[in-house]
């Protein structure tokens, strides 16, 4: 599903975020990507989503070499991924419903069915009652749930989350972890970048550890 082949990412200025990283995530796996802050977790996710290009090596997602995709192919790769970034990146001038609707709009999903899908996604994350609320009035945990609903509304084959429980109190963090577990049980491939691996260890996840850009486990 996702394969890194001796991937190195060096930023302009010489900083090496990833060095000779190789691993594979199979369909239906739940993988927790660990490592301290600055270990290269976010860079790894950006490479999968074609937000960055590898300096060396190859990144494969669903059989596609991400680094060699033409610009007009990149959107279609991103549509197959459900991305939850560290900053939830909700649009503050739109309702919760409209935020979750956005991925369906950009893919040209038939508007008739889109509303139904949005409501299903919101119900899955327990935010069905908040669809007409503006995101700024929600708590951090609720905003994360909306961001997750937005990531799953397109029914992606892979769900990728960067620090989904960061800045959340333990109760909220456990709720979010349980959500990802339910998606995994539904057959979705999941990659979670987190420094809080203990949250996900009870769910039988595989662990990948980065340290200063190198794979150590």
């Amino acid at each position, binding site marked *: 599903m996702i394969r890194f082949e001796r991937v190195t990412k060096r930023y302009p200025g010489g900083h090496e975020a990833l060095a000779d990283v190789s691993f594979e995530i199979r369909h239906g796996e739940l993988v927790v990507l660990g490592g301290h802050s600055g270990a290269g977790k976010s860079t790894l996710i950006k490479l999968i989503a074609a937000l960055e290009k590898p300096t060396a090596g190859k990144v494969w997602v669903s059989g596609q070499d991400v680094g060699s995709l033409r610009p007009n192919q990149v*959107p279609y790769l991103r549509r197959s991924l459900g991305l939850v970034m560290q900053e939830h990146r909700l*649009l503050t001038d739109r309702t919760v419903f409209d935020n979750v609707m956005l*991925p369906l709009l*950009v893919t040209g999903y*038939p508007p008739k069915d889109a509303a139904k899908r949005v409501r299903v996604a919101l119900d899955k994350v327990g935010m069905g009652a908040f669809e007409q609320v503006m995101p700024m009035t929600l708590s951090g945990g609720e905003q994360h749930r909306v961001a997750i609903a*937005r990531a799953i509304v397109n029914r992606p084959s892979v769900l990728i989350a960067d620090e989904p429980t960061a800045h959340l109190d333990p109760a909220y963090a456990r709720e979010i972890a349980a959500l990802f577990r339910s998606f995994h049980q539904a057959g979705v491939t999941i990659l979670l970048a987190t420094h809080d691996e203990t949250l996900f260890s009870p769910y039988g996840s595989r662990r990948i550890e980065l340290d200063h850009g190198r794979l150590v486990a």
Partner: protein
Amino acid sequence: MSIALFPHRLALRQALARLTAKPLATFLSALVVAIALSLPALGLVLMDNLGGLARGVSGKPEISAFLKREVSAEQAQRVENRLQADKRIAALRFVPRDLALKQLAARGGFADVSGALVENPLPDAFIIEPTGENPAVFEAIRTALAAMPEVAHVQLDSAWVERLHAAVELGRWSMLLLAGLLGAALVIVTFNTIRLQILTQRHEITVSLLLGATRNFVRRPFLYFGLLQGLLGGLVAWALVEGVMALIAPRIEDLARSYNIVLDLHGPTPLQAAGLLAFAALLGWLGAGLSVRRHLHDGAVD
């Protein structure tokens, strides 16, 4: 509504929402477009009116060929035969010298003069109406006539009309040039408006791209915005031109009447109005397109 058209409907709705979100700013932008376009548009409409005057005043241009006094009736007949065989000549009229004198005497103020003449000083003449309206053909006929040994003098009666034509053409070209220059300015205005919009909507664009939006999806609302803003400006420009024409037309017509010229000035024709709207919309679309190309392709957003 077809699924293929849905992204366009969505983009159009977004563009309309942006236009109506700040009505005063939208109106002022449209006014800038309108003022810049109304000046050349007004000039072109006036030139069109004057062009009609030049075409209408003379009817068909005429060439007068005055024969030498010693040319006999037989020689004049031979000249007439040759002219009738010329395909470039649509109509031909012989004016004998006696008839010319009578016509002169009939004109107010000349009766006494013609009565005082001992001998008719006027020559026989041919009044020639060329085919078509090509000035080059008129000139060729004039040259051919002047080369005939029987002809003393040739006069192209439509010379002043041609000068008016030339002046109107010059005016029309000047207005087109002005329209081009002001059009470039409008492209720059729209370019900058869209640049500011892209900056203020940077977050939304970034999120959309992250969620799999194509560049066309991101570009489309800005293109529609530019097109609609241009169209709005074109509509206001049209109204301005109609308003100005309604104000000045009676005064110009009065002035023309004092020179015995009957003028019936009109505002833009439906075709001209459609052209103005299309030109304005095109400028808006072009400015938006250039801005989007510049600002969404330099890595500024993602």
